[in-house]
């Protein structure tokens, strides 16, 4: 457990010092600011599209930050050392993914309500959207990490990682958007069934993704 925490903590420290937190939030805001220009000044339309837009922007931001998750370690030799730790590689990669979640995804989630203002999201719709994003984000990070591990030996693999991961994101996105819509009645109550499905995805990713990530990294050994 101490090794897990040490790995996670280093990932957080490196992410923070490398400016990943700030860059990710800036990316989110710029993307969200550009969207109304593309869609036009129709406030009602914007409000309808907003949850979907937030999800897609989140996806892109995560993809952009995740592709270096293992490649940086490959380039400086730290990846070799990860294989020699007294902790199963599956848990090592889970620690790194958790660190990434803490330093990039949590700040992004906190920034969403503010970004929502720019998309004309009503306060009453916000709890559903936030709950769905928070429950969906772990799956997104873990699935993205599979892509990052598969393409670890390929230089400048952002596009390749995207191609590998985007199809995996489809189910999360579909259920995520469904869960982001408040249940009928207009009182802002969250869509419990949709959120349950997202939580289930998250649990499945938590159990299966580390195995896939570790296997992908081992296959990249040479």
């Amino acid at each position: 457990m101490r090794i897990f925490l040490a790995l996670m903590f280093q990932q957080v420290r490196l992410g923070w010092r490398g400016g990943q937190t700030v860059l990710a939030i800036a990316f989110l805001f710029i993307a969200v600011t550009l969207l109304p220009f593309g869609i036009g000044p129709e406030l009602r339309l914007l409000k309808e599209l907003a949850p979907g837009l937030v999800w897609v922007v989140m996806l892109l931001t995560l993809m952009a930050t995740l592709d270096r998750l293992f490649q940086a370690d490959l380039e400086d030799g730290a990846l070799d050392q990860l294989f020699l730790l007294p902790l199963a590689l599956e848990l090592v990669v889970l620690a790194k993914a958790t660190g990434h979640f803490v330093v990039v995804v949590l700040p992004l989630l906190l920034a969403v309500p503010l970004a929502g203002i720019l998309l004309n999201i009503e306060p009453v719709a916000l709890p559903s959207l936030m709950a769905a994003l928070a429950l969906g984000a772990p799956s997104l990070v873990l699935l993205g990490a599979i892509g990052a591990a598969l393409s670890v030996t390929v230089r400048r693999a952002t596009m390749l990682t995207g191609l590998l991961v985007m199809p995996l994101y489809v189910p999360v996105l579909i259920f995520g958007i469904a869960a982001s819509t408040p249940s009928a009645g207009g009182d802002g109550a969250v869509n419990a069934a949709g959120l349950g499905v997202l939580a289930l995805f998250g649990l499945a990713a938590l159990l299966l993704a580390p195995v896939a990530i570790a296997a992908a990294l081992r296959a990249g050994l040479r």
Partner: protein
Amino acid sequence: MVQDEIFFDPTGAPLAAHASGALHVQDIMCLRGSHCLFDGFSLTLDPGAALAVYGANGAGKTSLLRLIAGLVPIQAGAVTLPAAPDMAVAVHYVGHLDGLKNALRVWETLHGFAGFYGCAALSEWQTKQILSLLGLSACADRPVGELSAGQRRRLALARLLPVARPLWLLDEPFTALDTQGREVLTRLVGAHLALNGMVIASSHEALPFATQTITLPAPQGSV
């Protein structure tokens, strides 16, 4: 009592010698793409012995070390250490790439090593001790990215210290080290061998600590 100055147990207990038994490498083969570097390669290394691996560029020195560390899948043959079923936690590997993070400070890197290998957090005294041993006391607070190549190499060698593992695999350990750095490394290896540890180091120059040597044949044609 060289080892007392270098390795220390936080509880003050006398240091236990490694009881891993001899390292056996049996009939391993090394492929580089479709290119066969060596086949049917065997060696035995007794506790307390240090093997220097010489050979031309491309002869497979690094590959041999990585094979033994388990960082390259073994195609044929076996690498065994009787008392250590999991080779991954029985070796320290210091390679060409140092695995250091530029954004971290020197002392943070050192504490990271201790954390990753699951040993107790280093006390302030231990940290100072290790840094002064490696000649890095003056740059404890500096980011790793500002260090010179030789200083980085010294810090990379610090990986060997917080947790004792029987087999050290050092890939051209003298690269970038000055005379004093080489002396420090030689002392470290001496203390490690005195505790029944084993060392395999590749090099292009004579290693003063080697108790036996092997020269890999020059690279041949493809399979």
